[in-house]
């Protein structure tokens, strides 16, 4: 068996793949957080709960309406996005213009309520959610066997991240979003309905989280606490990438996922803290993050 730096090659590839998959979730979630933070200046602590809601939406429409995985990939983000739109309209929008801490506290409270409610209804244990039959099995890549579903997760997340990036960088809507991130009042004075833009942005961010939740359901099971386990890491990713930086969130998400996987191979004891160590170093050396602009 071949080895790389004394590590069996299949173990290395396996951990890189796991790192890429974790990185896919970090990237999708931190992307939504970055978009929301950039425009709304809200640190969305409910993001993990929205990810969990996405997974539960898929689980519930399967078990109560018989709607399967593929439609759920579209429907769950729509449902969670709609809930987020209501939250933004009736709660979050009242907190704009005052200390951002209030938005953080509101979304933190919402996350606790949602997670508590789902734990009450479904218990803390995970509910199984089967991958669609088209994506079961594994494929031999020559140097390793890759479960097809995991490959799909990486590809789907890349497509979603790229699509979101294109939406923000290359469309008129994205230009409104970028400009409003810099100076919302002036953009509104030009005639753009900025309050609506804020609502849609929050809905989009939550929908991204829900999409990630559906993708995660067959891998991690559907559990009320799946979001809170992940969200702390995702916040670290956002800080490393630079608050509000779209590209930073995406690149850092994949990068830290892979780095975490590599740490599991070479120094497993550090694997659960490596991201936070990097965060601490980045904060010391470059407080605005790797891709952030100093303000």
């Amino acid at each position: 068996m071949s080895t790389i730096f004394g590590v069996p090659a299949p173990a290395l590839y396996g951990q890189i793949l796991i790192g890429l998959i974790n990185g896919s979730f970090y990237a999708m979630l931190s992307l939504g957080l970055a978009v929301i933070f950039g425009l709304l200046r809200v640190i969305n602590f409910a993001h993990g709960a929205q990810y969990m809601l996405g997974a539960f939406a898929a689980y519930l429409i399967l078990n109560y309406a018989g709607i399967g995985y593929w439609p759920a990939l579209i429907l769950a983000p729509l449902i969670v996005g709609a809930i987020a739109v209501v939250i933004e309209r009736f709660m979050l929008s009242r907190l704009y213009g005052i200390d951002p801490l209030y938005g953080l506290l509101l979304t933190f409270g919402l996350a606790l309520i949602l997670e508590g409610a789902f734990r009450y209804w479904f218990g803390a244990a995970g509910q199984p959610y089967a991958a669609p039959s088209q994506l079961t099995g594994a494929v031999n890549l020559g140097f390793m066997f890759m479960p097809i579903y995991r490959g799909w997760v990486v590809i789907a997340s890349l497509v979603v991240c790229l699509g979101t990036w294109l939406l923000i960088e290359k469309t008129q809507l994205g230009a409104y979003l970028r400009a409003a991130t810099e100076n919302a009042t002036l953009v509104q004075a030009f005639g753009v309905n900025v309050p609506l833009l804020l609502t849609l942005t929050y809905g989009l961010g939550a929908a991204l989280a829900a999409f990630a939740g559906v993708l995660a359901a067959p891998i991690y099971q559907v559990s009320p606490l799946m979001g809170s386990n992940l969200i702390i890491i995702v916040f670290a990713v956002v800080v490393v990438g630079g608050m509000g930086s779209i590209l930073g969130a995406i690149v850092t998400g994949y990068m830290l996922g892979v780095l975490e996987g590599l740490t599991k191979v070479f120094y497993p004891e550090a694997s659960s803290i490596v991201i936070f160590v990097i965060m601490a170093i980045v904060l010391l050396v470059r407080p605005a993050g790797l891709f952030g602009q100093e303000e």
Partner: protein
Amino acid sequence: MSSAPLLEVRGLNAWYGESHVLHGVDLDIHEGETVTLLGRNGAGKTTTLRSIMGILRRREGVIRLRGEDLLRLPLHKVAQAGIGYVPEERGIFASLNVSENLMLPPTVSEGGMSVEEIYTLFPNLYERRSSQGTKLSGGEQQMLAIARVLRTGAKIILLDEPTEGLAPVIVQRIGDVLVALKKRGMTILLVEQNFRFAKKVADRFYLMEDGRMVNSFPGHELDARMDELHEVLGV
């Protein structure tokens, strides 16, 4: 000029927080006119523009555009009523390139300039259309700030100190642009400290002091009133 004014401001009061900054401002601008607000720093010129736009929200009085009450409108509806705003700080967006900055304000009515016309009027913007907006020189940023509201079909533009901090040759160039806009029938409300510049384009002047309109006179009287103005403006 006996017809109803295009923009009519009556008894406008405005507040920044608790501080009362405009005290009963009256202002009329007729279609096709260029009107200039003069006054010292802090006299309330910029505040008047911001109040008309609705950026400053705490206002009382009357602001009507073609008879439509602007005071009730949310901020984004004011531009849609037909006003283009060129702020003092220019407001060029760093995360947008020149072309994206130009295309940013939504069209509010028909009859705006086409992108080709704008690039003909401002050839250096065309050359730098892919540059980041804030990489332009101050003069180019000012031209971009003006250019971007010409596209929208706004019937009146509010220009806040377009010549501030710019070299004489650029000021000249911006003056030419305003004259060209006047010829097209554009209505302009200008805030300006530079007399010689304002004289070239203004049909009428308003003089502001301490948040009040203290005088108004036609453009051709500017020279005769120079002594009076120097006293009020302290220049």
